[in-house]
C-alpha cells in the first residue's frame, strides 16, 4: 500500500470512533500489536527525547528498507508508534526521508501529533528520518 493509503485507512478507523475516549482506546489497542522490544535494547542512546514518557526506538537497514522496533512505558505513545510504523516501517529509506510529516495532520489527531508538544510524536518522526539517512 502507498503511504497515503495507509494514512487514509487509519484516518477512517479513528473517524469511526464516536468520541475522543474511544479514539484513544483504539490507538491503545493498536499498540498491543507492536513487535516485542527486548529489555536489553532499552538504552539511553536509543531513547527518543521530547516525550513526557520514555520511548525507545531501534532500527536496522534491511537492504534499502528501514526496519524498526520501539516501545514506551506509556500505552498511548505505544499506540502512536504503531500508527507511525503502519505508515513507515519497512519502507524504502528514500521514501521515509521524503515523507512529509505534515500529512499526519490528515489523521485528525492534531492534538497528539502537533510538533513541539511534549508528548507528541514529532521527535519520533525526526529520529526515524535521521535513521533512514
Amino acid at each position: 500500500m502507498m503511504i497515503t493509503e495507509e494514512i487514509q485507512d487509519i484516518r477512517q478507523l479513528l473517524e469511526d470512533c464516536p468520541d475522543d475516549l474511544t479514539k484513544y482506546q483504539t490507538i491503545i489497542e493498536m499498540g498491543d500489536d507492536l513487535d516485542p522490544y527486548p529489555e536489553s535494547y532499552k538504552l539511553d542512546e536509543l531513547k527518543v527525547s521530547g516525550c513526557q514518557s520514555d520511548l525507545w526506538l531501534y532500527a536496522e537497514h534491511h537492504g534499502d528498507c528501514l526496519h524498526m522496533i520501539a516501545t514506551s512505558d506509556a500505552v498511548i505513545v505505544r499506540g502512536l508508534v504503531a500508527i507511525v510504523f503502519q505508515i513507515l516501517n519497512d519502507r524504502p529509506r528514500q521514501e521515509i526521508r521524503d515523507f512529509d510529516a505534515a500529512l499526519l495532520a490528515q489523521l485528525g489527531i492534531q492534538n497528539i501529533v502537533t510538533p513541539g508538544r511534549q508528548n507528541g510524536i514529532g521527535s519520533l518522526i525526526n529520529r526515524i528520518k535521521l535513521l533512514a539517512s
Partner: protein
Amino acid sequence: MNCRSDFAILTDSPDGTAYLDSAATSLTPDCVLEKVNRYYRYYNANIHRGIHNWAEKATVEYEAVRPIVGDFIQMGTTTVKDCEIVFSSGTTHSINLVANSFCADWDSDDQVIISEAEHHANIVPWQQLRDRSGVKLQVVFLDEKGQIDLGHLEDLLKRGTRRSLVATSILPNATGILQDWQQIGQLSKMYDATVLFDGAQSVPRIQTDVSVCDFLVFSGHKIYGPTGVGVLYARQGLLDDAPPYMSGGDMIKTVNFAETTFNIMPWRYEAGTQNIAGVIGLGRAIQWVQEQGIDNITAHEAMISDYAQEALKSVDRVSVFFPDSSKLGLIVFAVDNAQSSDVATLLNAQQVAVRSGYLCAEPILRNRLGRGVIRASFGCYTTTEEIDRLITALQKSLQTL
C-alpha cells in the same frame, strides 16, 4: 464559595472543561481582565518616564499596587512598606533575584537550606549559586507526615559556619501539605538565618504574611492575576545596596560612560519597561481575593481537598501521595500499572484537565515514588461536581489502562 459567575471562562466555556490545574495557573476573573483591558484601552503608556497624562495615570495605577500587596501580606504590627515590594516576572524571577543579588558575596562559609519538597524554581537557582560561589546547599527532609523535619532543620542550622538562608515553600506544589511555616521561620531566626518563603501556592489560598520571614515570593498567575508578573517582598535593608540582578533602563539614577548610579529600592530591581498591565492586573486580582475573603477561600479549598482526597482513596489502583495528611488546594496521586501521561490524556479526552509528570519537583517524586504522578488542583471556583467528574472519568480511563 459562589464566585463562578465572576469567570467568563467558566460560564462561557463551550467545551465544559473541568479545570483541575489551578496550581499551575489559576483562572482569571472578569474584573481583572477588565482592569488590564482598561490600561490598554485608555492609558496605554510607559511609567515613571513620561510627563504626559497617560504616563502619569499608568504610573499612579502601577505604584498603587505596592500598598495593595503590602496590605495583603502584612500581619499585626508588621507593616509592609512600598519600598519592600519589588515586582518581578514571577516566583522564579524573584528567587533568582535573591540568589544573585542578596547572595552576591556569599561563599563556601555560607549555606542555603532548602527542603526536599521544593519546586525546581527553588532548587536550581541555589544550585547555580553553589556552582559559581561554593555556597553549601543543604536539603532538609520531610517527616512521615510530609512536614519539614524541624529537628533536621535545626541540625543543619547549628552546623552553619557563617550566614544561613532557609528557602522553603509554605505549601509545596508536589505535596499540597501546608508546612508549619511560623515554626520554620522562628526556628531559623533563633540561628540568625535569613528566611525566604516560596508563597506561590500559599498566598492564593491561605493568609500568608511576612511576620517570620525576610523574603516572600509569589506569582500573579496563581492568584487569579495575569501571567508574567510576580512579587518579591524583601525586608527593608536586605537589598538596598546589593548589586542589581538585571540592569538597564529605569533602574538607574544617573548614567555616564564612566559609571552608573543605581536607583533605590524597589525600582533598583525593576530594570527595563515593567509588566505594567500585569502589575495593574495583579493589584485587581488581590483586591478580588480580599473581596471573596481569604479565609473563605481557605475553608472552601480545604473542603474540596478533603472531598477529593477521600474520593480518590476509594478508587482502585490509586495511591494518594501522603494519604494520611490533609491537603490544601491540590492532591497528588499515582495509578498502579499506568503511566501518568496516559491517565492525563484519557482524562483530557473526557474534558477533565489535570497535570501529570514530575510537576517541576522531580527530586521528591523520583526519590519517594520513582515515577510521575497526576495532580488535581483547585481554586476557589472548584466544585464537588467537578471532583465527581474527575472520579468518574478516572474510573472510565482505568478500564482502558
